[in-house]
């Protein structure tokens, strides 16, 4: 394995660490996996952590992440059932997989019987029991090699969840994933790899909850690969409520066959720095995706939502709506690229992002990009950033609604458009509660 020496010490120390850990990483006996890991390390080695000169990372500065000396094998603080947050989805969820600092914890998890043809296991277990399935999934969704964080994940990936649905299998209740971050003597880093392989006409809903059980720093580097065969429907809802010192970088890829539907919702509250990057490839006619997100950031929090959608076939569509509320000195980023490839006639792509700035020092950066190489397409994008409507605020107050309650109502109304529009109706109430609590905490 030859690795070009990266420019900075931080990036280099990750590579050194990789050299040491490599023989102990899960699936070390699988030659294909060793190749994937080495290729990831080599790709990361070429660039190291992206700097501001890297176009797709222009607005998200990783300097603070590079400063922390994270440990890849720190022992987490003990976590027991009682310290876990309540189920997001209540009693309705069929199963709950719990991860602590990236590692699967069967003792904390509850796996109900899934219908025949559905498999939900940890990444480690999948590597041991169904290595071919994992290989097929990972090879089929090789992440965008240009993203160094995803490449780093490929090198280190050690646990996560794997959901496999055979043709026609439908999961009625949502599957819940709880990923807990806890402190350790040395701030931990973990590289999680999740795989969702949805066979023809299968259906599933996945609710992912990332929550910090500490106030200290850790680095969660996630990659999730979705593969949706013809007619599959996958809904993914992620609530990110990490520690306020944590780094949460999540890179998702999704490949959609004909008439497949992918619905992604990212709700971000926590983290010092977080990024949801999602790459969707609409590869056959009728494939549609909805990418939605909402975020509430304050203090010096930074939240980046980056979407890259490729329309590769005729008659594909995509709807994107991201809305965020920024207070204090928080920084929001939205980057959205839609590429309509030459054959993709009758593409329908709509993208909108709106930010509400509650303070003078809050900042929003947005960069929409449309690249259109077909002639019969309907594409639109828009971006707004503004303050609360002071006339609406006065109107509410003049009717007797106290100022902070009036602000809360207007913020809830602002985010309501994206929350009410989410496909997963059962998540609306928990998310609304999060918003009210966030507004309450501001006071």
């Amino acid at each position: 394995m030859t690795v070009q020496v990266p420019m900075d010490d931080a990036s280099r120390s990750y590579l050194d660490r990789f050299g040491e850990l490599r023989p102990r990483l899960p699936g070390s006996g699988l030659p294909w996996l060793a190749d994937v890991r080495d290729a990831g390390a080599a790709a990361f080695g070429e660039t190291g952590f992206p700097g501001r000169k890297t176009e797709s990372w222009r607005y998200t500065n990783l300097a603070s992440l590079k400063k922390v000396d994270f440990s890849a094998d720190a022992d987490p603080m003990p976590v027991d059932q009682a310290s876990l947050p309540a189920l997001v989805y209540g009693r309705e969820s069929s199963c709950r997989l719990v991860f602590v600092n990236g590692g699967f914890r069967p003792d904390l998890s509850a796996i109900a019987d899934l219908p025949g043809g559905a498999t939900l296991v940890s990444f480690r277990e999948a590597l041991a029991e169904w290595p071919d399935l994992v290989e097929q999934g990972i090879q089929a969704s090789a992440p965008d090699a240009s993203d160094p964080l995803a490449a780093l994940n490929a090198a280190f990936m050690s646990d996560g969840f794997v959901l496999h649905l055979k043709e026609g299998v439908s999961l009625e209740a949502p599957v819940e994933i709880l990923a807990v971050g806890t402190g350790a003597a040395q701030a931990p880093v973990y590289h999680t790899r999740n795989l969702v392989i949805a066979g023809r006409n299968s259906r599933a809903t996945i609710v992912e909850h990332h929550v910090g059980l500490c106030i200290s720093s850790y680095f969660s580097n996630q990659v999730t690969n979705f593969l949706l065969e013809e007619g599959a429907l996958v809904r993914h809802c992620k609530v990110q409520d990490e520690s306020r010192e944590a780094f949460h970088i999540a890179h998702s890829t999704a490949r959609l066959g004909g008439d497949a539907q992918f619905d992604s919702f990212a709700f971000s509250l926590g983290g010092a720095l977080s990024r949801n990057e999602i790459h969707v490839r609409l590869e056959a006619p009728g494939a549609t995706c909805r990418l939605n997100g909402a975020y509430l950031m304050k203090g010096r929090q930074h939240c980046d939502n980056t979407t890259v959608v490729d329309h590769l076939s005729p008659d594909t569509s995509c709807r994107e709506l991201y809305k965020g509320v920024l207070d204090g000195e928080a920084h929001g980023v939205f980057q959205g690229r839609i590429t309509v490839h030459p054959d993709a006639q009758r593409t329908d792509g709509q993208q909108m992002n709106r930010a509400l700035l509650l303070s003078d020092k809050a900042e929003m950066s947005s960069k929409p990009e449309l690249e259109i190489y077909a002639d019969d397409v309907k594409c639109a994008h828009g971006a707004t950033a503004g303050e609360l409507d002071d006339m609406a605020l006065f109107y509410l107050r003049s009717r007797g609604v106290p100022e902070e309650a009036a602000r809360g109502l207007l913020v809830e109304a602002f985010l309501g458009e994206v929350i009410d529009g989410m496909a997963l109706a059962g998540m609306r109430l928990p998310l609304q509660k999060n918003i009210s609590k966030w507004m309450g905490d501001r006071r």
Partner: protein
Amino acid sequence: MLEIKDLHAAVDGKEILTGLTLSIGPGEIHAIMGPNGSGKSTLSYVLAGRDGYEVTGGEVLLHGESLLEMTPEERAAAGVFLALQYPVEIPGVTNMSFLKHALNGVRVQRGEEELDAAAFLKLVREKTKTLGISDDMLKRAVNVGFSGGEKKRNEILQMSVLEPSLAVLDETDSGLDIDALKVVAEGVNALRGPARSMLVITHYQRLLDYIVPDFVHVLAGGRIVESGDKNLAKELEAKGYAEFVPEAA
């Protein structure tokens, strides 16, 4: 009940109210008429406490208490209600939720219990019946997509739910056809009572045929320049405001 004494107010550093004095007794209806730009809406915003409307002199007392130091929500709790000339649209907040937050906001400030959902619904149902407001309108976002008439009726609905002791109606007649005007006037008249005073601001005499005032005042150049009974309104209709605003002649 309401005492406005030598009120001066400025917007963006420009003095708009230039020494306005007006006294309204309990149960009285006063009309204020005046040409465009004379300061009618400014007076209404100063009474309701909108930001940016800076009081530079004088005082305003409601039930003997100074209004000017109060926040808008405190004024609402003290019994002030302003029906806006241009009601505001609030996407994402339903009319029902708006009314509930308003009523409970006022009640909590007064140290009363919040109304529960059932009691609130019953109250709103009673009020909507007389104003011809449909359930559909209650479920829609506040004023979003409402016609001019619906917006004004909605203001009156809010007023009847909040039962203020001082209602200020700023050009509630503007943009209404005669049928809509009658509905609105009926709603207002239903709220007349010995404990409720009203300040009806209008540009036209027409509204005053339906909401008959006890006193009529002419506002020009930021102060009251003439006062009289309801016949003054008729006189103004015939002669126009030219007599009071020389530069408009």
